[in-house]
């Protein structure tokens, strides 16, 4: 069996009376391109925040690369890269300054940081605005920079919270190319996205969370088989998603209800 990159056991997070994430058991094998799906407010970002150390779980266990997160937080943070919700950029630095800062924070020496920054900025097509503050970048440019910062230290696991949100087709192409290359080199990628077509095209495995509970997990084939009872059917990920999440009445609303819009 391949190495497990991400493993959670009964991972739970409560905010007062609200249980945002309810005892989820996730298992992501090393080298997998893993999509984590769910409707708005399902608990995706909360889960990713817990897995990356931005939020403490209320209960349950998390292991990354076989190590307990709570006991090895600093060591594990060295091995992971994150594009968090809101991107977490220092907006009053330039792109190059930010990458230098991040590289050093991950313990890279100055020449390696410089070399990688240059390569990443060129790859992401951010070199034509060297003196521009991040605050003045477009949303898509900020996303590309956030991804560059997340990979500068060569992480073994990459967590991406909505990496394609607000990104144009060209930028999305650059992001996809980078992610594909990383997968080829053995990196595990854990991403959340609302763009099901992209997830379907990129991810080999998915998990679906709804109202804080894990309602489906496995390869696309396994999920298809789980719904129709037979393997090899042609259900799209969108159909799988609606079929699983829609069971509790959250299916697509009837457009006739908004007749005043037309």
């Amino acid at each position, binding site marked *: 069996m391949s190495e497990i990159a991400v493993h959670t056991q009964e991972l739970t997070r409560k905010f007062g009376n609200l249980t945002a994430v309810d005892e989820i058991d996730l298992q992501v094998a090393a080298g997998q391109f893993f999509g984590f799906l769910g409707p708005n407010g399902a608990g995706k970002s909360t889960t990713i925040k817990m897995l990356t150390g931005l939020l403490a779980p209320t209960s349950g266990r998390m292991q990354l690369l076989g190590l307990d997160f709570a006991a090895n937080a600093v060591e594990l943070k060295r091995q992971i890269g994150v594009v968090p919700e809101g991107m*977490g950029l220092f907006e009053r630095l330039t792109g190059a300054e930010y990458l230098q800062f991040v590289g050093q924070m991950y313990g890279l020496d100055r020449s390696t940081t410089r070399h990688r920054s240059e390569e990443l900025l060129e790859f992401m097509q951010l070199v034509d605005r060297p003196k521009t503050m991040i605050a003045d970048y477009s949303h898509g440019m900020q996303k590309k920079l956030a991804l560059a910062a997340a990979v500068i230290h060569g992480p073994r696991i990459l967590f991406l919270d909505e990496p394609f949100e607000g990104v144009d087709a060209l930028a999305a192409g650059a992001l996809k190319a980078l992610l594909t290359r990383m997968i080829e080199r053995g990196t595990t990628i854990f991403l959340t996205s609302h763009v099901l077509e992209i997830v379907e095209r990129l991810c080999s495995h998915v998990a679906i969370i709804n109202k804080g509970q894990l309602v489906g997990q496995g390869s696309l084939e396994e999920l298809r088989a789980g719904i129709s009872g037979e393997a090899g059917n042609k259900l799209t990920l969108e159909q799988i998603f609606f079929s699983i999440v829609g069971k509790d009445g959250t299916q697509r609303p009837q457009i006739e209800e908004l007749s005043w819009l037309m």
Partner: protein
Amino acid sequence: MAHVRTALPGVLQQIQLVSRLRWRILRNSLGRKNSRWDIIGVVLTGVISGIFVLGLCFAFYSGAKYSVAKGQYEWMTLLLWAIFLFWQGFPIFVAGFGANFEFKTLLRFPLSLSVFYIIGLAYGLSDFSAIASVLWLLSLSIGAGAASPGIFPGVLLLVLTFILFNVTLERLIGSWLERIFARRRTRELFVGLFVLCMVCLNFLNPAINKHSSSIRPLALRLFPYLDWFPPSLTGRAIAGVAHLQPTQFLVGIVGVLAYAALLTMLLWKRFSAQYRGEELSETAAPLPVKVEVPTADSDLSGTLLFLPPQVAAIAGKEFRYLKRNGMMVLSLIVPPIMVLFLATQFAARRPAVQGIPLSSELFFPGLMAYLILILMAPAYNSFAYEGRGIQSYFLAPVRFRDVFLGKNFVLVTILVLEVGLSLGALIFINGLPPVTLLAAIATGFIFTVAGQLSIANWSSLKFPRKLEFGKMQGQRQSGMAVLMAFGTQILLGGISTVILFAGKWTDNPWLPAEGFAFLGLAAIGGYFASLDGLSHMAESKKETLLEALCR
């Protein structure tokens, strides 16, 4: 279905909607855990400020009553000048206590320009300086009315006109300063000019002393021109009301209204630009496309090789942020210039203030304490400008002790530099103080700075509050952080004073230096011992921090 055209709400309705929105935002924010502490801080700060404001209300009431009763209306003019200078000057030197709400965000709604203008003006009245000044002006009217009830309506009318003038001017200055600070070139130019003016001010007193005989008549010749400024015009109009001289009253009120109209026109122009969607970012104009790979020449942290890489990275980032924050740069430049100013005004040529000799034993430590007091204040909310970047600290493989070490390193470097330069300048101007005093200042510096750092770091984690870059209006510090800063500085200041005087009482000039050295070592030990505890605290407080700073 047919397209239904809805009528836009009227001006009053729009203002009502925005007021309701403000109230709901305030009410909902009270429910937040972090806000509750903030509210306690605001209440306590409010009580202290309230005592100050109410005390002066009584003073203005009495002053106006006396002025009208005795028929000495020039006193009334002086009171109006005092309020005018406070109202316009306070927000510039102290980021106001105004509502922390970006009223320009309302532009997404179909607000008319007039509503936008009125709301913008109304926000000007929510600043601390505006509230205090309005209360003082009302006290002044009541005082005048108490002395002569017949003149109250006329005085009230004049005071309301004066309020309109002041609020418009304050908003105009604020919006222009924000515009200036938003762009690097204008910011640097402005800071340069400001520093130049402050330095020139240092030569004012010696120049006045030297040429006092020729300056005095010139100043007396210039004084009458002040009559044409709004505080004097209002004062004269009040005298007109009291003496039943309608011409004097009309000249005064029309004059102030003319000023208000002119300022309204200028402010309308500014707000119109904002209404049209003015961009105030660093690089508003499109940059020429130029393919250029950034080099590491600008890698500031490369010069901090003696520090661990993570600490150096944070220190480098702090220096860059400091350099790009106009308001912060200003707040760092002003204190040493003020020290020089005080030194040249009160110590060089006049070794005594109003006949009381000013000994170097008081003068030197006093000015150093002032510097530390001002420069340490931002450390009590040191994550204020991080914004969403705060997430980087929690995502990177660093312990929070490194974050504090980096931030504190920058602050201490600036403090050492500024205190060192100021001390050097003071010695140059006033001569060398006794060695025992120099030693006491140096060790006292270590004690007060190291002693404050641990508490300031704790305060930064416990009471974080986001502040916007380069903005001066609508910015409010965390109430509890302000109280922590005051409390700690009063405590350490008290201890330091006792130690300094202990040397005098015991006739042992080395005692203060020895005492401070001992306490300084203890404070340094305490500082390093606190770092691990603060790292744990940061972990447990990270949700509060992220919530407060990533909004």
